[in-house]
């Protein structure tokens, strides 16, 4: 009986650790007032590296702006997503890194502000190991519809406003090239109530087994 309780306790504790490994979320806010009214474009892409890459997923959530999105069919390339991307802005976009090029591009007339969340999850973040390449998310803004003239970034060579690297150890690294862009980690690592219940059950069963063990020894 004692062994069963120990095993049950360990299993529950294991689930509890797993429950902590939620997505990594960034809150992104861009002050676009300096280019308000400009008919430009936005680009999001999330791609793996060239060696062995672990599976990872990314979502663009809660996209909000007082600017105007161009319908995908009407943008300069005639469509928005390329590769493993689903959804349409301002709704949720879901990317994975299953192909080499996963991109969402759309025309956009800038207003004074732009905000969205970037949520990263999947084995590369929750159970990293065995990979030799990471994955990279990049967000860019352009002052032309063709997406060739970067704006609101100091990285005029690459045009990225910011990038998020998924590292081999499951951590992420943000590089922000835009003084107008704020990229802040969202407070998503607080354990959910369900997790606390699991931890409590594990501890209770573990402690409860101690008197029983003494009885058996007698």
């Amino acid at each position: 009986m004692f062994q069963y309780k120990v095993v049950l306790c360990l299993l529950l504790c294991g689930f509890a650790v797993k429950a902590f490994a939620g997505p990594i979320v960034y809150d992104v806010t861009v002050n676009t007032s300096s280019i308000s009214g400009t008919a430009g474009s936005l680009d999001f892409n999330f791609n793996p590296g060239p060696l062995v890459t672990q599976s990872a997923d990314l979502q663009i959530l809660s996209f909000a702006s007082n600017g105007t999105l161009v319908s995908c069919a009407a943008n300069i390339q005639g469509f928005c997503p390329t590769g493993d991307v689903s959804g349409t802005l301002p709704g949720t976009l879901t990317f994975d890194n299953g192909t080499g090029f996963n991109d969402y591009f759309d025309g956009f007339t800038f207003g004074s502000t732009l905000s969205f969340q970037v949520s990263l999850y999947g084995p590369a973040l929750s159970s990293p190991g065995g990979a030799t390449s990471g994955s990279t998310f990049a967000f860019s803004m352009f002052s032309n519809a063709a997406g060739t003239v970067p704006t609101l970034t100091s990285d005029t060579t690459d045009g990225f406003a910011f990038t998020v690297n998924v590292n081999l150890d499951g951590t992420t690294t943000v590089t922000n090239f835009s003084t107008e862009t704020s990229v802040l980690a969202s407070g998503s690592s607080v354990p959910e109530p369900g997790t606390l219940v699991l931890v409590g059950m594990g501890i209770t069963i573990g402690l409860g087994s101690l008197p029983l063990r003494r009885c058996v020894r007698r």
Partner: protein
Amino acid sequence: MNTTVPIRKLVTIAIAIVCSLGLSATPAKAQETPKTCAGVEVRTVHVSIELDRGDSFLPDPSPKIAEVPGKIETLTAIGPPLGSMDSSQLQTALACTQKGIALTATITRSANFQGAVLQNVVWRPRIQIEVGLHQAEVIVATTWRMRLTTGAEVNQAETPAAPYPDQQYPITVTKILSFKYNGTVGGISTTVAIPGQAVDHPNGVGGIAVTNVNKTTTYEYLGGTLIGSTLLTGSQVAATTSGLAYNRVTQTFDGTVTITNVSSSTIAGPFQIVLNSLTSGVTVANATSTFGGWSYVTVPTVSSLAPGQSATVPVQFKNPSNATIRFIPLTYVGSFVN
């Protein structure tokens, strides 16, 4: 208790299975495919198979290119573990590369395979290649592909029985034959690289028996190339990369390659990273130059790497067809002088 009958039945069944598959220890296909390239001449290609005898492919079941002992110009390309659902009749094709030869071997798997038949029959293909070398460095690349009988390309395939893991296709194995002349003796340096894995187990100078020093020295002069560099092994340096972000301004895929000294000694630079076996149609936009037919980048401003120390170099790829970019990073110390 009499166990003779069950054992006899098992042996009979095993023999029947092997015979029905056409598998035996003798070559399944012996063919001669001469091919002459700029720096290397392929004299013969012989395809055979090797049966697994109780996990005998362990501890290293990975495809590889191995030397044939005592035969300086003969290599054996060993394929992945396969099963009864795979045909022993391989399709092979040779092509010249800028500084060597590329052999493509295509395996055909039954489209009806559901992962639960004849799991006790495991074998792997062996391709013996006899070459003649005409330059200081030759790169031999073997690519293993798998297709179903329907013609569909297979990217990931089960191996019929444990302990062999599933296999990603295509598999490219590269061997660099580098003939060096240090003023007194000749030698051959070889190494094997598999995509996604560290370069390891180099044979180094003397790994192949050098039967004729003068002949090796002659190769050096024929090639007219002085190689002042040394390939680092997986026990010396580990290479990793970032993801590749698409840059709409330059229309390139941008990322970084990081090398880390995983040995216990400081390694003196300069460091060159050769992007071996880069995906066809993809070019390196910021390459320093080429070596062995492949682009390389020089790691800037790093004169040495202490144990545990890393250095990072940016890489940019032109990829007009948006293909998945793959390459094998080979790290050298020294300089390439052409």
